């Protein structure tokens, strides 16, 4: 029972971190109509910028400045890169973002080297917040939860309660009408792209110390972010939240409990073959849930695409 609570907290941290990435990506998707393959690269840039800033000015200044820099860089990419490519259609946009992801990875290796960089959490947060049955919950994790919940609440408030938010929402759905009403839609798009990448930057800043900062970090996290927004429904902020939390909890619980494939297969009425070591399905029978935990979200995505192609909260039906 205690362990369930601990796993719920761990899964929440993973899920919220994922949400900060998927929120930005899903907003950008509603706007451009294509996926931004370089989204996780902005997450990586956030971690590296914060690392460099933290060496000189400390972690907190890094937390403040790095997302800003990433956001400005993202806005510049939209203004001078994507907007030019946009007129040629969706495929060039996709290829552009894909190329950008490769470029950023090479750039990071060029500037910071190919090794891990020693980016660590601030000393003030290096203590155990509380313990549940001998499982310590580091204060840094609580800090991560607060930051991401804070960002979600703020984002939701701006998008639904303020005038700016309403114009953004309108511009995302009916850009031509909003333009006709006299609003600067390209500027709004640039802003949304900037904020989306800045969110990824924040995620990088706070995830860098726990998930380690290295040139492959975008590649490890990138695919799972796409999975999150496909499951949640492309373009839906609530969908991104629910899917991210779902992925966080599924992977955490699958890793924590050794559920054996043998037990599942026996449970649905398939008997264990007599000489298992000879059986062609030996690998399938001996599978355990921790072995496949990080692949489960992909299985879920395939199921969602089959049974509910628009995603859990998606409105788009094409």
């Amino acid at each position, binding site marked *: 029972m205690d362990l369930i609570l601990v796993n719920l907290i*761990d899964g929440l941290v993973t899920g919220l971190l994922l949400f900060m990435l998927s929120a930005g990506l899903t907003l950008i998707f509603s706007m451009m109509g294509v996926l931004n393959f370089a989204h996780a690269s902005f997450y990586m840039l956030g971690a590296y910028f914060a690392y460099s800033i933290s060496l000189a000015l400390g972690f907190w200044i890094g937390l403040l400045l790095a997302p800003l820099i990433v956001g400005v860089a993202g806005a510049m990419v939209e203004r001078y890169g994507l907007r030019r490519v946009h007129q040629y259609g969706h495929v060039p946009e996709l290829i552009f973002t894909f190329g950008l992801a490769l470029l950023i990875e090479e750039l990071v290796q060029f500037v910071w*080297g190919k*090794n*891990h960089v020693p980016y660590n959490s601030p000393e003030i947060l290096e203590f155990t917040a509380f313990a549940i049955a001998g499982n*310590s919950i580091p204060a840094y994790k609580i800090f991560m939860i607060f930051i991401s919940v804070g960002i979600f609440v703020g984002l939701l408030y701006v998008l639904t309660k303020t005038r700016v938010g309403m114009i953004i929402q309108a511009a995302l759905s009916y850009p031509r009408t909003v333009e006709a009403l006299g609003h600067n839609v390209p500027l709004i798009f640039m802003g949304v792209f900037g904020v989306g990448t800045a969110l990824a930057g924040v995620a990088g800043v706070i995830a860098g110390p*726990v998930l380690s900062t290295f040139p492959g970090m975008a590649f*490890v996290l990138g695919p799972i972010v796409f999975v999150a927004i496909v499951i949640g429904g492309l373009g839906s902020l609530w969908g991104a939240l629910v899917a991210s939390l779902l992925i966080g909890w599924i992977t955490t619980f699958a*890793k924590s409990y050794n559920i054996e494939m043998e037990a599942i297969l026996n449970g649905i009425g398939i008997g264990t073959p007599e000489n298992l070591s000879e059986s062609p399905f030996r690998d399938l029978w001996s599978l355990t849930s921790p*072995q*496949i935990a990080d692949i489960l979200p992909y299985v879920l995505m395939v199921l969602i695409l089959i049974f509910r192609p628009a995603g859990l909260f998606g409105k788009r039906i094409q």
Partner: protein
Amino acid sequence: MKNITKLGAVSALSLIVGASASFADTIKVGFIDPLSGPFASTGTNGLHQFEFAADYMVNANGGLLDGTMMEVVGFDNKISPKESLIQLQVAIDQGIRYIVQGNSSGVANALTEAVDKHNRRNPDSRVLFLNYAAVDPALTNDKCNFWHFRFDAHADMKMDAITDSIAEETDIKNVYVIGQDYSFGKAVSDAANKFLGEKRADVTIVGDELHPIGKVNDFTPYARKIVNANTDAVITGNWGADMLGLGKSIIENGYTGPIYTYYAAGSGITAAFGESGKGTIRLVGEGQINPPPNDEAAAYVTAFKEKYSDGNVDQTRIANTIGMLAAAIEEAGTADDVVAVANALSGMEYETIFGGKIFMRPQDHQAVQDLHIFEHTDVDMPFPFDNSPYGVRVIKTIPMASADIETTCQMKAPS
């Protein structure tokens, strides 16, 4: 004075023999390892260590066989067995007779087979394969051949050393084995179970599991299980990002016992562990640099750091590989007849500057040497890694570790 006379005589002689002839030739060592892609940092650091060893140990002392210099040539195999075979052919075509490789046993398996085949078909351009880091036990067992020499202890020998250390710590009761889900992770798990069963029947293996390689973002759930199993010691074969992620997560979530592992030093990992890894991360390996066993070793590391300030001397076996090859060439009196060089290497006893001696077992061409258990720390650390205050320090030495470990190798010398 004597040296100068000798040098003068040699130069004069070579002038007489003819400037166009062999004087300009060097003994080339072909380094086939990843120099681009995700493992580029490991490969590049290895190449630097080879270049440095050749310059420092051979060329600075006047070369081999009266003045022939040694040259290390890098070939990028992108850690692919297929690409390695192409690069091997390129190297052979350039007249290279000595191949060194280490990253990935998959590549080593492909290379040793290709070298064996090549040498049987082309007796005029035979090559030797000096393996400095691929630790799959099969390479000096079922798949051994006359041309392959391994300068690193293989995975089972290293696990033998780790379990020796655990066997002495009687307060360790519960051991947790975790690794990446592929051949090496499984081999580590098998060896751990086997040796612990033999040496400490009272130890319980409280967990033995594999996780997907390179796919795990967050190791927290694994760490929770390790903590909840009342683990006294963790054994893992993880490397790279998986090592750092697992280690950091275990420590962060309240584990205080030792983590025994193979690859958790250098390439930025030591710096990234920093204070948190102190007293927890323990590695098995050869070659002592902290504390330096003698002035020679200290001078070697200092000179290396002067040349490559971002590098680490984290593979002392590279220096041993070059040193033993040089000694074998001198003993054989030729660098062209690799059979003679191989015969000189086989059964060689070599004093290494990093402490102790190395014996190249003739029956399987597996080096037997002192293995150490190192601890990640910043205390008393003259030669740290990654330009951080932290490095690895010897806490236990197993002299001539696993000297009589069994082998299934049936060595066939060439006719």
